[in-house]
């Protein structure tokens, strides 16, 4: 399944400063659908090159990271259980505090 993954707000620093990743991810562990929970684990293994604790905490993203699936907060689509579809755009963005 083709997905576009984007990192922002400093999270791109964890993936060699590359913000946009066009990737191919298939449903994990023989499942029929790919859900966010599995995608997070895939991202952690395949894209995060340093300080994984700055991206994830336990099974989810760390506090202060917003996850957007097709420009919509993942809280509105089922969070970790959100089912992903072909050509979906998933954005991971760290909240900023500076000014």
């Amino acid at each position, binding site marked *: 399944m083709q997905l576009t993954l984007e990192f*922002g*707000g*400093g999270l791109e620093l964890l993936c060699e400063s590359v*913000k946009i990743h066009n990737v191919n991810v298939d449903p994990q562990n023989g499942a029929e659908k790919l859900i966010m929970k599995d995608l997070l684990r895939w991202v952690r293994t395949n894209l995060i090159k340093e300080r994984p*604790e*700055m991206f994830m905490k336990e099974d989810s993203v*760390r*506090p*202060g*990271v*917003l996850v*957007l699936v097709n*420009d*919509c*907060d993942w*809280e*509105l689509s089922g969070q970790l259980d959100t089912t992903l579809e072909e050509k979906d755009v998933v*954005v991971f*963005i*760290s*909240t*900023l*505090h*500076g*000014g």
Partner: protein
Amino acid sequence: MESDASRILHELQSLRASKSDIDRRISALETQLHQINLLNDSVPNGSHHSISTIDNSHLNGPHAHYLTPEMIHRYSRHLLLPSFGVQAQSNLLKSSVLVVGAGGLGSPALLYLAACGVGRLGIVDHDVVELNNMHRQIIHTEAFIGQPKVKSAAAACRSVNSTVQIVEHHEALRTSNALGIFSKYDVIVDATDNAPSRYMISDCCVVLGKPLVSGAALGLEGQLTVYNYNGGPCYRCLFPTPPPTTACQRCADSGVLGVVPGIIGCLQALEAIKIASVVGEPLSGRMLLFDALAARIRIVKIRGRSLQCKACGENATFTQQEFQEFDYEKFTQSPLSPSPLKLNLLQADSRISSKEYHDRVVNGDAHVLVDVRPAHHFEIVSLPNSLNIPLPSLEARLPEISSALKEEEERKGVSSGSSAQLYVICRRGNDSQRAVQYLHKTGFTSARDILGGLESWAHDVDPNFPTY
């Protein structure tokens, strides 16, 4: 020469004092005048005729608005907008907005809010204007370096629009004063630069039922949204758990392109104007994400008010009293007025002062100086003959240190038995301690760090050494 300088400094100080006194008196008189004008305009056939009293046949009855001729002239371009017009401008003139932080975000926000004619504009800040603020904090001018930002910002706002009542809150925002200050305003603008302030400001807005225009900027990115507006989410709905402190970067450490907070600050002014004048759709339940480098703005839909929210949720009982007792620094593990971190990881005998290090250089002592700052910091400025090995690459580059020490020993002809010294420096003396800790573990047992880093070198040894 020196007495001349101190005489000039003294004169400057006394001139500044009288200037600020005059500014205060001007502001007080302007406020009086503004109020007299408002009063007169509400009296039919008073001495100040507004259009509404002279030509009210075109309006829906007399006194449909109270704009004075001067206001009509000043705000004419707003009045000409069919979707803004007299009603929105009148709303704006009756409204009050508080901007917390007169920095990179607050600068343009305040200028536009003063210019557009909000009735009362409050500014909270405890900081002073510094030279390294000027590239982004465009409300301040060089003449105000060293003076309170509130004073500088207030003077700029008054010079843009003397008819707006500008209120100076020259204090740090705390739970002890936030309720008192916020309760005097209709709309709050968060233009601060740290996590505990953001939670505190959001909670205070929830407790008092005030809409909050929240902006943030760092590096080349910005974010903007409106919290606690018309049933929309608050900051805690979105971020119930504070982020780890290591995820909270500061402009003073990570840098920021000046125009980026400028853009977000302008958008904050826009959202505040929309709320105060009751026009348009405020950015509530949505968030604007700005990527300056890619030239992209994305507006995303965010969650609504969370029923479980500790501040505004269904069963939340967050009271004014609880707000006042809440420890935001403990909650976020970071200080409300961020100051540079000062670690103390090493024994005293593993550290030397920049002055001592200077003496050893003058003596010609055999040594190697490793600078562990990132390469782009090293490019700004460095000490002569220092070897740049950024902290994250230290582990991989230990052999370079060994060979540099050996080379130095050969070059200086150090007799066998003694050896060249190893010193480590960074910007402020934190990373250098981390590096020395690591070096001690990997066999470089005599490594020492330079206390306070290049900042102490600039302060104690070479006042002409640039700081950043």
